[in-house]
């Protein structure tokens, strides 16, 4: 009987505000959950800062006081430190909640909830992203600003655009992580998929070097052919103001495209998975 009640729940939603309130509650719980991992946050932040210093010096040596690939020294510094900060916000690495639940069979409780699993996980991830923005992004950028002469945006419009771009980046990165995790529905051992993700995500997102360092054709291929640059390079380029406003708005447009595509793919994959899913045990 319990099963019937659980599935019937979907129809008891009476108006539009109810699911919204539910999503809001899940987002808040995502925020609170990560707020309890205080030591882990501190440890990650320390690592980000350490690598921030290393990348800073390498890229400063590349710029050599001039301009490289259209970026000035201070702009490259902003690139490095926002990159280290955003790494924890979009959470490129280290998310296996879904895969763990698929493997243990706990996923079945997610399927019984009156909310689509993709929406459920996305809402929690946005909460996590909000927490990371406060405790990972701002301290990292602050550290960069304390030690180096970083570039600060000149136009006021850049800040809301950046906020929008970060939000889209979290959604796109979440979509990719969800797909990587969802491979656990089919594969018992998803380490191979994970390795591929580790390798590709760092290179294509603009974490290791700005995508513009690549030849134009390769950069274009990455921007339009993969979601990679939309994770990190897009919000960073929006903030750095290397390009005129229309180009930056265009970058956000590319992000919107990838966000819609990734969420749609998540839905499709989830539906396919549910059709073949066999929950083990009783």
């Amino acid at each position, binding site marked *: 009987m319990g099963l019937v009640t659980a599935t019937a729940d979907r129809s008891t939603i009476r108006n539009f505000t109810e699911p919204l309130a539910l999503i809001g509650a899940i987002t808040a719980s995502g925020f609170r959950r990560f707020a309890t991992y205080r030591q882990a946050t501190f440890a990650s932040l320390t690592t980000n800062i350490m690598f921030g*210093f290393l990348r800073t010096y*390498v890229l400063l040596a590349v710029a050599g006081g001039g301009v*490289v690939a259209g970026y000035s020294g201070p702009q490259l510094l902003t690139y490095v430190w926002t990159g280290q900060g955003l790494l924890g916000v979009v959470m490129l690495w280290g998310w296996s909640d879904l895969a763990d639940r698929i493997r243990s069979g706990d996923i079945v409780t997610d399927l019984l909830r009156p909310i689509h699993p993709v929406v459920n996980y996305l809402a929690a991830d946005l909460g996590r992203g909000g927490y990371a923005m406060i405790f990972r992004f701002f301290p990292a950028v602050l550290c960069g600003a304390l030690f180096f002469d970083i570039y600060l945006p000149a136009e006021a419009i850049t800040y809301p655009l950046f906020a929008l771009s970060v939000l889209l980046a979290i959604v796109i990165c979440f979509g990719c992580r969800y797909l990587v995790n969802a491979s656990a529905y089919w594969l018992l051992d998803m380490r191979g998929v994970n390795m591929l993700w580790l390798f590709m995500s760092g290179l294509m997102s603009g974490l*290791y070097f700005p995508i513009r360092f690549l030849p134009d054709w390769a950069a274009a291929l990455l921007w339009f052919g993969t979601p990679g640059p939309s994770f990190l390079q897009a919000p960073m380029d929006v903030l750095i103001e290397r390009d005129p406003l229309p180009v930056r708005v265009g970058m956000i447009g590319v992000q919107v495209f990838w966000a819609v595509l990734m969420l749609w793919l998540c839905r499709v994959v989830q539906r396919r998975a549910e059709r073949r899913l066999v929950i083990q045990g009783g």
Partner: protein
Amino acid sequence: MYAKLIGAQGRGQASYRVSFWLDLAGTTVVVGADLISVLVIFSRVPVLAGFTLKETIVLFGLALMSFSVADLLVGNIERIRTYVRLGTLDTVMIRPLGVLAQLLCLDVGFRRVGRILYSGTVLGIALWVAGVQWTPSKVVLLVVAPLAGAAFFCGFFVATSTVAFWWIESGEIANSLTYGGRDFTSYPITVYSGWFRKIFAFGLGFAFVAYYPGLVLLGKADPLGGPPWLGWLSPLVSAAVVALAAFIWRFGVRHYRSTGS
């Protein structure tokens, strides 16, 4: 006894054949991202802080080789934080064998062999392309430097992992110094400046892993004005690091308090 433990690990891992080969290929490919980054950066500049691409790749290869050997030998010590949290460490401590040696045998990462092959290939090609003028002493240095560098990183792995004894949820903080150090040595230290270079290159000794031995192999004068014999100091520096690491480890084990769960 230890050989038996390691052998059992090897057999265990090899029995999941596909998984093992995927892991081996994967760990090798993932480190490839670092090399790609160096190549991309040099596509923008011909000379980075006084070093050409060929010269930098020699340093990169030396650093990676040292790190990979250390990672194979003691890299899994970073799992100590899991052992402390889960209480596995208590089981280990009541056995009549060395704590450190047992921990290292608990999970031997045979997949990391791939990285050594990979870094050896990178270093070999880099030395060949850089046109090193070989002398007997340079051949000796080529053998000594990666071994000393490996000992150096082993010391760092062990020393930084002890933080888990005091700080259970230390997470990746121990890695930031070891992995950060690997990235630091992958580039010539002329890239860095100020207090950051002083602390990492000389204070912690990372300059002696790849930079100074690399200069000797390349027959290049130090842009910072250091004498050439600095390249031969790496075994001494490594010995000091290993001794210090052993001291910190013993201190940590003696002060270990179980989580009690």
